[in-house]
């Protein structure tokens, strides 16, 4: 092979290596920054509970990293030492242990045990105080939200002592920034678990038993939550969003949610409403202000005000809604909404109506 060809090859190889290294660096960067910033990350706490948990996490991370490095250092030292000593090996059995070496060894082992116990004890105390701090938020007189987990979506009910002020929504929880909210958690089928890594959790939702979780957001933002207990086929697609917003904005949102659905504004929406009411939809869904009042599926009264459909799975757009209504089993196989074939004009009218449910 001629020289220029060979150098050409190696330049190509070098380029390949360089590109691979660059890609690795980029991937590492992306991974670490995603882990530390995202809207679903325990490393990016937005409230006191998640803050305490992440402090505990960092403590454990640093201590364990230090222990790991120390162990590796000792291992390396040991390897280096044996290599030096191999020269002195003889065939004679070593029956008389070297007293000095025995003493040193005992010292090292005792020291390691003591350090281990101290570290574990520090972890014990730290995790105990963290657990306690998670209950420090409890306050009986705050905003109460009842969350009912179902395969595979979340029913959210804002409670109020005045019955007419309570309302239901789904898969989207709004909370005021800087206030503690009490979440009462239950399930109507199997065990689910409520987890918003940036704010708090996890807490299990257990059928026939109520659990409580307190949440507080210090920073406004949208955080993603996820069911954290395997609950069947579509467990991975059982997500939700928590929107933390300033108090005035939150109150405005709550006022809007309390209102019944807006009546159809034009002929097409009118037709869409008729399609909805004449379809199986009414057997499962509620639209407050109409005859649809079943409560086994998400409340659609203010569907268009939500960011996602199908429990955080799809952005709430007309296209996704259309796909969902005509055959949700293609999008989320096994979910509990049947495919409902509609004539194209009926479907379009229905979508216009659904989009008007602001």
């Amino acid at each position, binding site marked *: 092979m001629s020289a220029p060809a060979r150098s050409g090859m190696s330049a190509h190889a070098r380029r390949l290596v360089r590109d691979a290294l660059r890609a690795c660096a980029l991937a590492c960067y992306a991974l670490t920054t995603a882990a530390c910033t995202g809207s679903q990350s325990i490393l990016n706490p937005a409230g006191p509970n998640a803050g305490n948990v992440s402090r505990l996490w960092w403590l454990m991370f640093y201590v364990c990293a230090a222990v790991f490095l120390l162990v590796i250092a000792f291992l390396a030292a040991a390897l280096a030492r044996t290599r030096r000593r191999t020269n002195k090996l003889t065939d004679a059995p070593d029956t008389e242990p070297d007293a000095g070496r025995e003493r040193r060894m005992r010292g090292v082992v005792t020291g390691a045990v003591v350090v281990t116990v101290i570290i574990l004890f520090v972890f014990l105390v730290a995790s105990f105080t963290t657990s306690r701090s998670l209950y420090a938020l409890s306050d009986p007189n705050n905003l109460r939200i009842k969350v009912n987990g179902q395969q595979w979506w979340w029913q959210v009910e804002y409670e109020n002592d005045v019955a007419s002020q309570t309302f239901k929504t789904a898969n989207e929880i709004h909370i005021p920034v800087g206030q503690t909210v009490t979440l009462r958690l239950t399930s109507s089928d199997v065990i689910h678990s409520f987890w918003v890594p940036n704010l708090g959790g996890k807490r299990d939702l257990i059928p026939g038993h109520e659990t409580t979780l307190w949440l507080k957001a210090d920073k406004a933002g949208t955080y993603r939550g996820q069911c954290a207990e395997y609950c069947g086929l579509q467990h991975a697609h059982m997500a939700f969003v928590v929107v933390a917003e300033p108090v005035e904005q939150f109150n405005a949102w709550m006022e809007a949610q309390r209102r019944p659905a807006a009546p159809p504004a034009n002929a097409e929406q009118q037709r869409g409403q008729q399609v909805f009411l004449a379809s199986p939809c009414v*057997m*499962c869904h509620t639209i407050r202000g109409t005859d649809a009042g079943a409560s*086994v599926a998400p409340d659609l009264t203010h569907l268009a005000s939500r960011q996602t459909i199908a429990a955080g799975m799809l952005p709430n757009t007309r296209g996704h809604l259309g796909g969902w209504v005509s055959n949700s089993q293609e999008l989320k196989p096994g979910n509990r909404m049947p*495919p*409902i074939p509609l004539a194209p004009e009926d479907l379009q009218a229905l979508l216009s109506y659904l989009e008007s449910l602001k």
Partner: protein
Amino acid sequence: MMIAAVCGVVSALCLVAACKREERGLRVDPPSSARVNSKTLSELRPGNVQPISAPNEFEQNAFAMNEGKRLYEWYNCVGCHAHGGGGIGPPLMDAKWIYGGAPEQIFATIVEGRPNGMPSFRGKIPDYQVWQLAAYVRSMSGQVSKDASPSRDDDMNVKKPEQSTEQQEPRGTGGVPKSAERPQ
């Protein structure tokens, strides 16, 4: 050789049977989710007429009947029929049928409604779900294969739970057991 062949056939049969029980279609094919108003059921008449029996495939399928059981609550059949014992509507766990107990007759009852207070669900329940409901309704009176029908209940047990043993009649003449007669 003969034995091997027999074993093969038997296990193949078992497999086929087992498959029906466990089959679970996630993607419902569109025609079967069509709404029930497309059906003409006019040849069916109230009363215990001899059924023109077409078997309901769901009656061999555990998943489908469990879906039927869930829908029975979701669509509030429970409100009128309770969990089979009846209330406003007649009991469904007994052997008596006003309008017939064949799969298509129950299908018809659900779709068309019946004059004395059974509402019509025409257009409100997709076809395949009505068949799931019909299969579950028949399972309440023990008319479907026991190995596929739902057998655990949170409510009053309509049928014997699957682990239950026959109730034992106390044996002997009663009184003091033999072991306790001996002087201590």
